[in-house]
C-alpha cells in the first residue's frame, strides 16, 4: 500500500510536468492552429541557454551571488525565447498562414531540427547543470502507517508546485487580461478576430513567447532533475499523448491529461511492466491515448468536429 502511494505520488508529480509541457502545445494550438512539435526542442534550447548563462555570467562579471546569477540567467533566457518566438513567427508561421494543420506540423518538425542543431552549436552538447537549489534528498511520510514510510521526492514536489503555480498563472492570464481575451478571440475565429482589429501577427508572437517561457520553466525543472542535455527534447514526446488525450484546444484537458498519463504510465510500468519485461511506459502512454481517441476522437475536452459541405 505504502508503495502504491509512492508510485501514485511519483506519477502525479511527473504528470504535473507533462501538463506543463502539454500546456505549451495547447497555448500555441489554440491561438495559431499549429501543432507545435518543436515544443521539446524549445525546452532543450531554453534550458541550454539558462544553464550556460548561469555559467557565463559569473565568468564574465565575477558575480558570486548564486540566486542573483540564476535570476539574471533566467531573464536572459526569457529574452532569447522571445526572440526565438518572434523569428518563428516572422520566418515560418507568417509565411504559412491558412495552411493545413499537417503542413504546419511538418514545418514545426523542421523548426525542431533547426533548434536542436543551433542550440547545441551555440551552447555545446555536454551535460550542463542548472542549480536553482531544489532539494535532492527524499522525505518519508506516514512512517507509522507503513513500514519504511511513503517516500516523497522533495524535488518532484517542488517541481510540481512550481508547475501548478505557472498553470494557474496562465489560466488567470487567459481569463482576466485584455491580451488573454484577444488570444481567446483569435483561438475561436481568426478572421473574426482580425476583422475587429486584433493584430494576428502580434498575438502569435505573444503566444509563442509565452510558450517559450513555459518551455523554459519546464526546461529548468527537468534540467535540474536530469541535467541539461540533448535528451531533454525527448520530454516533449512524453507530452504528445497528453495533448491528444486532453484535447488539443483545452487547457484543463492538458492538465488532467498530464496527470492521467503520468499516473497511468508509472502504475503500468510498476504493476504491468514485470509481466511484459519492463519498459512499457514508453508506449503505454500512447496506446492509452490511442484507445481513448477511438472512443472520443476529439480528446477529453476537445470540440466535436462537424463536416460541413
Amino acid at each position, binding site marked *: 500500500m505504502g508503495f502504491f502511494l509512492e*508510485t501514485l505520488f*511519483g506519477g502525479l508529480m511527473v504528470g504535473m510536468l507533462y501538463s506543463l509541457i502539454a500546456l505549451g502545445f495547447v497555448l500555441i494550438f489554440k491561438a495559431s492552429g499549429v501543432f507545435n512539435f518543436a515544443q521539446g526542442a524549445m525546452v532543450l534550447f531554453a534550458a541550454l541557454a539558462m544553464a550556460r548563462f548561469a555559467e557565463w555570467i559569473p565568468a564574465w562579471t565575477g558575480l558570486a551571488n548564486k540566486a542573483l546569477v540564476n535570476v539574471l540567467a533566467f531573464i536572459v533566457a526569457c529574452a532569447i525565447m522571445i526572440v526565438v518566438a518572434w523569428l518563428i513567427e516572422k520566418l515560418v508561421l507568417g509565411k504559412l498562414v491558412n495552411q493545413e494543420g499537417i503542413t504546419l506540423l511538418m514545418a514545426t518538425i523542421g523548426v525542431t531540427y533547426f533548434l536542436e542543431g543551433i542550440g547545441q552549436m551555440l551552447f555545446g552538447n555536454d551535460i550542463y547543470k542548472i542549480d536553482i537549489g531544489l532539494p535532492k534528498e527524499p522525505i518519508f511520510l506516514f512512517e507509522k502507517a507503513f513500514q519504511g514510510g511513503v517516500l516523497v521526492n522533495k524535488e518532484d514536489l517542488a517541481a510540481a508546485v512550481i508547475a501548478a503555480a505557472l498553470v494557474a498563472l496562465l489560466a488567470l492570464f487567459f481569463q482576466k487580461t485584455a491580451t488573454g481575451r484577444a488570444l481567446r478571440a483569435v483561438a475561436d475565429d481568426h478572421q473574426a478576430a482580425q476583422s475587429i482589429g486584433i493584430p494576428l501577427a502580434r498575438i502569435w508572437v505573444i503566444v509563442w513567447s509565452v510558450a517559450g517561457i513555459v518551455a523554459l520553466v519546464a526546461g529548468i525543472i527537468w534540467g535540474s532533475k536530469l541535467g541539461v*542535455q*540533448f535528451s531533454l527534447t525527448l520530454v516533449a514526446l512524453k507530452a504528445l499523448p497528453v495533448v491528444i488525450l486532453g484535447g488539443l484546444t483545452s487547457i484543463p484537458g492538458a492538465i488532467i491529461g498530464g496527470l492521467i498519463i503520468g499516473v497511468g504510465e508509472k502504475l503500468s510500468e510498476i504493476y504491468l511492466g514485470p509481466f511484459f519485461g519492463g519498459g512499457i511506459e514508453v508506449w503505454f502512454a500512447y496506446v492509452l491515448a490511442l484507445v481513448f481517441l477511438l472512443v472520443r476522437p476529439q480528446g477529453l475536452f476537445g470540440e466535436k468536429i462537424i463536416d460541413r459541405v
Partner: protein
Amino acid sequence: MLFKTLKGIALSTAAVAAVAASMLATPPAFAQAKEQFFPLLVYRTGPYAPNGTPWANGKQDYIKMINARDGGINGVKISYEECETGYATDRGVECYERLKGKGASMIDPQATGITFALTDKAPVDKIPLLTLGYGLAASQDGNAFKWNFPLMGSYWTAMDVLIQYIGKKEGGLDKLKGKKIAFVYHDSPFGKEPIPVLQERAKMHGFEIQMLPVTAPGVEQKATWLQVRQNRPDYVLLWGWGVMNSTALKEAQAVGYPRDKMYGVWWSGAEPDVKDIGEGAKGYNALNLNTSGQSPKVIQDILKYVHDKGQGTGPKEEVGSVLYTRGLIIQMLGIEAVRRAQERFGKGKVMTGEQVRWGFENLALDQKKLDALGFAGVMRPLSTSCADHMGSTSVRIHTWDGSKWNFVSDFMQADEQILKPMVKVSADKYLSDKKLTRRDAADCGS
C-alpha cells in the same frame, strides 16, 4: 518575385546535390601511399556525446602527438578522418563504408551496436576491429573471430570481476547466497551482453537477480528506481552509457538508495557521469581499466606537443580524464599494432588491414614497452595470441568521493575457468549460425 528567386535557389540546391553526388563518386584525395590512415568513428552530438567526446579527443590527440613527437610510426606519418556516428548503427556502418575506402587498416567503432554490424563486414574487407572493453564478448576467441580484438576486457569479464568484488565485500562469494542484486542496464546490445555471465554467477552462488532494463537513451528511470526502492536490493549493478549514468545516480539519490551499494561497469564510471551531481554521487563505485590524471608521461607529452601548440582537440582540463585516457590507450594499441606489424612486414611501410591484424594478434606490451611509451602505471602489460584476442582483463574499482575518483581495490582478473567455456559455446553458436568454421593452426601463422 521573391518566390521566383527562392525557387531558383531551390533548383540550384537540387543541382548542387546532383553535382555533389557525382563528386562523391570519386572519394576525395586518398591518404597518400606514405601515410598510415586511421578512420575515427566518433559521436560528438546527441545523448552520448558527453562520454563520446573525451574518448574521441583522446584518440585524435594521441595521433597528433605521435606525428609531432616521433614523426609518425617509424617515419610513416599518420593521417586520420573523423566520422560522426551519433552512436547510431546505420550511420556507423555508413561511416565505415566511407572511410574504409580511404585505406583504413583498423577501426574502433566506439559502439557495441556498430561493432555487431561490422563484425560480419570486417572479414570481407579485411579490416581488424579494435573494441577495447566492449563489443562481442565471445569475440575474445581469436580462433572463431579472426578480425575482432576486444583487448583488455569484455562485458563478460567486467561482470565477472564485479561479482567477485562484491563477493569479497561480503566476505566470500558463498556469502552472496540469498542476496538480491539489481541489474540496471541500457536496453541495447551494450546492456544485454553481460546478462549470461550474471545469470551464470547467480546460479553458482545462489543470489537473486532483478533485471531492470532502461530504454535508451535513459532519461526515463523514475519507474526503474521506484522498483529498486520497492525491492531494496543489496546491490545495484549499473550498465549505463551517456546520459543514462548521471540520470541513474540522480534517481538513486531521489529514492534514497545508498550510492555506495552501486557498482558500475567501466563505461559508467567517468567524470561526465558524476561531475554535475558532485556530493550526491559520493560513494558510487565503478570498474576502471585505466588511471586518470595528468601525471603520466604520455599525458605530459600530449600537453607539450599538442595542447601547448594550440593543437588540442578538446579543452586542456579534459586531458587525462578517465575516458580521454581510455581513448589514448585505444589509439596507442592501434598504433602499436601497426608498429608490431612493421617489425614483421617491413619498417617504414604502410601496413594493410591484414598486416595490422597480425600485429594485433601478436601484441607483446611488457612493462618495459609501456614505460617507454609513457604509459607506466596507466595500464597493465598486455599480450595477445591467435587464440586469445583479449589479453587479460586486469581492472580496479574506483569510487567517487564527491569531487574525484579514487581507486579502492587493486587489480583483479576475471575467472577464466567460468568464462572460457561460455566463450567457446557462444563462439561456436556464432560460427554455426554463420556457417563458418574455426581457423586451423596453419591460419594462425599468417
